[in-house]
């Protein structure tokens, strides 16, 4: 390990301890570390922005020409001027000029956000809430074989075919674990097969070989509605799936009632809103749990650094 790296590790360890000293009480060491952190972050961002943005995207194409064609991109003068106008915020006399680039940024942001939010959040989420019904149409898998001595498991369920062919329907649009064993127990195939909604994936078993003739393309699969992976959990067509649907249905409805303020929260509306509060609390609880996990993870990261890189106490 080079001396520079060793000095860096000792410096980082010292700063880590300075930051954690705040837990005892506010002190000068904490303040020093805090200022170093803010200062070094700002310096790092400036250097990165200079070499990754200013030089390759502004200075080089404007003054020296394109790397390949050598052509100067004079059109860049417009965004460069707009960018400079942003800095007029610091002058009380010329700060009005910053409204020009700001209005462009806001206009563009609003235009992008409105269509984006409707397209990606509102409509698909409403659709998924409705489509979460347990009667949704899903995909299938066709397995053909000339062997009678096989034990075929799909998602850990026995589906040994009686004839030469079997089609398993009502599969979710996801990956299903197919395991093929000989009756003596010898494993000859174990692999997940992709299934898409409204499509049939095909598998053929010939002698000791299993050929996947057709399965959904991962890219196609993402476009089709489906549900959680059911391997190991056997969620499809089960009580759990129905329970999942009922919970989502009640949760969405009662939470919407809680946020409906045009009617006083009394009587039936009040009771539904109270149920909604319960669901909101569960959501907050989950968020709190995840936040605790995130904060503890950060502490773990620092402890790992101190024990491994600094003190070499564990490997």
């Amino acid at each position: 390990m080079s001396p520079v790296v060793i000095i860096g590790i000792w410096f980082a360890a010292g700063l880590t301890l300075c930051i954690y000293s705040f837990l005892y009480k506010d002190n000068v060491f904490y303040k020093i570390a805090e200022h170093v952190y803010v200062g070094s972050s700002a310096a790092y961002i400036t250097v990165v922005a200079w070499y990754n943005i200013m030089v390759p995207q502004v200075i080089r194409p404007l003054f020296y020409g394109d790397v390949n064609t050598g052509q100067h991109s004079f059109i860049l003068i417009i965004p460069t001027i707009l960018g400079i106008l942003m800095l007029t915020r610091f002058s009380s006399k010329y700060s009005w000029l910053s409204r020009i680039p700001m209005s462009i940024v806001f206009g563009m942001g609003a235009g992008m956000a409105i269509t984006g939010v409707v397209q990606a959040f509102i409509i698909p989420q409403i659709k998924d809430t409705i489509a979460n019904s347990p009667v949704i149409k899903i995909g299938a898998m066709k397995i053909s074989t000339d062997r009678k001595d096989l034990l075929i498991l799909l998602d850990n369920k026995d589906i040994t075919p009686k004839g030469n062919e079997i089609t398993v329907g009502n599969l979710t649009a996801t990956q299903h674990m197919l395991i093929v064993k000989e009756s003596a127990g010898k494993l000859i195939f174990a692999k997940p097969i992709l299934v898409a909604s409204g499509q049939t994936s095909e598998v053929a078993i010939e002698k000791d070989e299993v050929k996947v003739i057709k399965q959904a393309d991962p890219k196609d699969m993402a476009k089709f509605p489906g549900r959680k992976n059911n391997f190991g959990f056997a969620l499809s067509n089960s009580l759990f799936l129905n329970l999942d649907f009922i919970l989502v249905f009640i949760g969405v409805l009662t939470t919407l009632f809680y946020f409906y303020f045009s009617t006083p929260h009394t009587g039936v509306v009040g009771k539904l809103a109270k149920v909604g509060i319960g669901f909101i609390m569960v959501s907050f609880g989950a968020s709190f749990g995840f936040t605790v996990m995130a904060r503890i993870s950060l502490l773990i990261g620092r402890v790992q650094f101190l024990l491994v890189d600094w003190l070499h106490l564990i490997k």
Partner: protein
Amino acid sequence: MDIVKLMKIDRRILFVFIFLSVLIPFFLKCNIPVGESPETEALFRYIDNLPEGSIILISTDYDMASRPELYPMAKAIIRHAFMKGHKIVSICLWPNGVGLAENSVTEVAAKLNEKRPEDKKLRHGKDYLITGYRAGVAIVIMSIGDSFSRTFGTCASITENIDGKKTTIPSISLDDHHRLPIMKNIKNYDSFKLTIPFAAGASVDAWIEFAGARYHQPVALGVTAVSAPRYYPFFPNQIVGLVGGLKGAAEYENLIKNPDWATKGMDAQSAAHILIILFIIIGNIAYFISIKKK
């Protein structure tokens, strides 16, 4: 001991307990089983089932503050992709994440290269590409849908470990297909079989909005535990998988059978959680007893 007095306990004592609950498991090595959530497993299987040679786009949208959570999962997923013969294109939308974007890919590549013959070694420009930082988040994400090479222009100058020596590779134009053969097959989102942002902020929304909804690109997420609950409703119809926080990283490490720092950290995580649950229970008991006494 009067349990009600615990309500006035100095919080610094609790900090000491939390610190010890994180510290001690590193020496005990209990190896508490982590399990696999369907969201993490779905991403694992998705990558596992992609045809060999598929190009995966990853984006580093985090900085050192989220490194303990996101860096191990990025490394595990990159390792899995490389082992399945896929190629990685790494971009960065956070200026403070440039080093992490480079290191996560080059470290995994260097580790795998140790056991590979010369002709199978993973190389920058052939098996992976690091573009560096571009400002604009949503604009960059949208612009990739039009043209990847025009969005980034050049690749980053990186330091690669070649034959045990650290070699600096200069920034090259993305149109130079001779030196960057990986770029022959990259035009826009249609060239990528999967996109995975590792994100600590709101860029995830932009990935779902523009890469997912607008360009129909399969998107999987690697997010911090704080943001994970917000994105679970998007699985499985809008995202193909979700790896959340240190636990998600540990799950992925287990799935690829390569337990690393996330798995090692999970013992400490579990111990700290048990302690916090105990604190909450004791605190509530003390609270209700104090009400009764009043």
